[in-house]
C-alpha cells in the first residue's frame, strides 16, 4: 500500500475508533476521583502540558507512575498515565530522578496478565533502553509463541532497537520458518544490521519472483551493509524496465553514492538513467536519476 493511502486509511480508522477523541470526557465520567487520577484526568480533558517547575513535575511523575502501576485504577487512566510518562521521559534531565522508578515500574508491567496495550508500551519503553530482561522476554516469545506477550513483528521491531541484541541468527531462522510476509519483513529489518545477511539480501534482490516488499528491504539492507556489492547488482535493476520503481530508485541511489561514477564508462546505462530522469513514473525515481546524472 502506498504511504499516502496508508496514512489516510489509518487516520480514518483512528477517527472511527470510539473514545479516542473524547477519552478525557470518558475518564472524567468514570469513577476516578482523588488527586492521583485527577492529574491524569486533567492531562486528558484539558490537554494541559506537564508543568515545567521542578516540584510540580516531580509530583506529577510520581503520581502518574503510581497510576500506571495500580492494577485497580481504571484502564483508561492507566493508559493515559503511560502516555504522559513516556512523554515526560523525553525531558531527560528533569526525568532523571524518576528514571530508575520508571524502569522498575515498566518491568512490573511487562509480564503476562497486564493489559496487552500497557504491556506492549512497557516492553517498548524497556527495549528502547536496551533492557536485557525485556530483550529476554521478547526473545522467549519469538522462540516459544505460547509465551509471547506481543506479536512477532512487534517483538522483532523492539529487539531491533539494539544492534547488539544478538538476535541475527534467530531473525534468520524466523525468516525461513514463517510464511507470514509481515513477519518476514520484520525479520529482514533486523537482519539489515548483520553483516552475514549480505548473501541472503543478494539472493532475494536478484530473485524477481520474491515479493516486492522483501526485495525492496533487501535492496536497502544490502546497500547499507555493503554498498559496493549492491552497486554491482544495481545496474541490472536500473536497466530492467519491468522492475519496481522503488527498488530501481534505491538502486540509482546506490550508484550515485558509489565511489566512481559508473555513467562515465557505460553509455547504455547513461541513456537509461536520462530516460528515467525524464519519464520515470514516480518522483522518487526521477529524483534518484537526476542525482546520479549530476554526480561528477
Amino acid at each position, binding site marked *: 500500500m502506498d504511504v499516502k493511502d496508508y496514512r489516510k486509511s489509518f487516520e480514518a480508522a483512528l477517527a472511527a475508533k470510539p473514545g479516542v477523541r473524547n477519552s478525557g470526557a470518558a475518564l472524567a465520567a468514570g469513577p476516578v476521583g482523588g488527586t492521583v487520577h485527577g492529574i491524569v484526568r486533567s492531562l486528558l480533558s484539558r490537554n494541559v502540558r506537564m508543568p515545567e517547575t*521542578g516540584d510540580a513535575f516531580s509530583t506529577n511523575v510520581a503520581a502518574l507512575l503510581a497510576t500506571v502501576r495500580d492494577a485497580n485504577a481504571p484502564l483508561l487512566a492507566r493508559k493515559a498515565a503511560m502516555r504522559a510518562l513516556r512523554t515526560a521521559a523525553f525531558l531527560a534531565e528533569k526525568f532523571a530522578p524518576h528514571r530508575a522508578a520508571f524502569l522498575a515500574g515498566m518491568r512490573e508491567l511487562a509480564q503476562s496478565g497486564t493489559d496487552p496495550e500497557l504491556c506492549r508500551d512497557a516492553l517498548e519503553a524497556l527495549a528502547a533502553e536496551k533492557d536485557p530482561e525485556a530483550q529476554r522476554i521478547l526473545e522467549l516469545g519469538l522462540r516459544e509463541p505460547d509465551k509471547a506477550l506481543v506479536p512477532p513483528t512487534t517483538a522483532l521491531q523492539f529487539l531491533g532497537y*539494539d544492534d547488539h541484541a*544478538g538476535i541475527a541468527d534467530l531473525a534468520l531462522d524466523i525468516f525461513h520458518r514463517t510464511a507470514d510476509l509481515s513477519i518476514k519483513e520484520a525479520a529482514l529489518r533486523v537482519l539489515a544490521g548483520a553483516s*552475514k545477511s549480505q548473501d541472503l539480501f543478494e539472493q532475494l534482490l536478484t530473485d524477481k519472483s520474491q515479493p516486492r516488499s522483501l526485495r525492496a528491504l533487501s535492496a536497502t539492507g544490502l546497500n547499507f551493509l555493503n554498498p559496493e556489492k549492491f552497486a554491482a547488482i544495481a545496474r541490472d535493476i536500473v536497466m530492467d524496465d519491468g522492475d519496481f520503481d522503488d527498488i530501481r530508485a534505491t538502486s540509482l541511489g546506490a550508484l550515485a553514492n558509489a565511489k566512481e561514477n559508473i555513467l562515465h564508462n557505460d553509455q547504455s546505462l547513461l541513456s537509461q538513467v536520462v530516460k528515467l530522469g525524464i519519464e520515470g513514473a514516480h518522483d522518487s525515481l526521477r529524483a534518484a536519476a537526476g542525482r546520479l546524472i549530476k554526480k561528477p
Partner: protein
Amino acid sequence: MPLVDRVQRGVPPCGSTPSEAHLVGLLAEQSPIYAGRSSRDAERLRGQLMAGFETYGLPEAAVPIVIEQLETGIAPYPIAAAAKALRGARDISPSVVALLVDCIERLRGCDDVVRFGGETESGAPATALIEVLRTIAWLGSRAAAARADLLVLVKQNPPEFSSAVCAEMEKTLGAIEPPPAEHSCCSLQPATQACCAIAPAPVAVDPAAGMDIVGVELQDQDGEIISFGRLFAGRPSVLSFFYTRCMNPNKCSLTVSKLARLQRRLAEDGIAGQINVAAITYDPAFDLPARLAAYGSHRTMAFDSRNRILRTTGPFAPLQRRFDLGVGYDANVVNQHRLELIVLDADMRLFADFSRVSWEIDELVTTLKRVPSGSLSGAVA
C-alpha cells in the same frame, strides 16, 4: 554447579571459594563464557562476576579491570558491579574517589535498579548510583576529597537525583568526614602518583617477534590492500583497536579521536613520518573502507602511508590471538571489548601495552621516544 551457572542464578558459591585466577580469567572479554551472548547479557554476566569480588575479596590482578570499568563504563549495571568489587579490596588507593565521583556524573541521567543475585536486604532495591555512593562511604575518611562534590550535588534545587539517592548521599557525607589532620601520601593525589598507582603502566611484555601475522592482509580506508608485515615493519607503530558500531563514547570514538591528537603532537615533535599510527577494526565484515574513512575523518584523523585506519580482509582471529586482544562477539557483532592500544617496535615486537588504560598523549609520546631502534634517528629526545 559450575561457577558461572551459580552466578547467573544468584547462588553464592558456597563450599569452596573460587580461585582468584579463575575468577579474573572469567572477566576477560574474550572468555568463552560470553561468546554468542548479546552485549547486555554479556555485560550482566560479567557484572555479576565482578560484583562477587565484594564477597571473595578483590585480587590485585582484577584491579585494572575494575578501574577500566569505572573509567569508561556508561551503563548502570557494570558501573555498579565495579563499585561493589572495590569494596572487596584489601588496600585500595583513595584516588579511586575521583573515578567514583565521575561515575555519579555519568549515571546522573541513566540510573537504574541493579540486582546481582543473593541480595537479602529488605526495602527498596539499590540503584547503580546508590552502589557507587556506598563504595564512597565504604572508603570512609579516605574519600573525604569527595565531600565538596557531594555537597554540591545534594543541595541542588530542583534535585537531580531521586529521594533515595539523596538520602544515600547524606549518609555518605556522614561516613566520609575527614579525620583529624594527619599525613597520608595518598590523600588527595592523582591516580598516577607512584606510591598508589592503580593504572597498569606500559611494560614490555613480549619477547617474541610477531612473525605469525606478517602475512595477514589488511585494507585501509581508501581500499588499498597491504600486508601487516609490509605496513608495520621498519619503524615503531602505535596500533589501537576499535569498531565503528561501538556504543560507548568513552571507548572507540575517544580512542580514534585521541589518535588524531597524537598525530598532531607527533607532527609538532617532528617525528610524524617515522612512526606508524594505525587503528584496526574488530568488526571487519561491517567496517568497510568507506565506513572506516568516514569514522576516522569525522574524528579528525589524517591519512597517508604512515597513518591508516584498517580492517582485515579475512578473519580477525589471527590478530586477536597474536595480541591476546580483549574482545568478545555475539553471533554477529562485538559484544564487549576493553581499551586496547599497543606500541610495536620496528621489528613488530610488542614494546608497550596500554590495554585497559585511558592513556594520555604525553605518556604515549614519551613511550614512543623510548622505543629502541634506529628508526627515530635524530628525533628521539
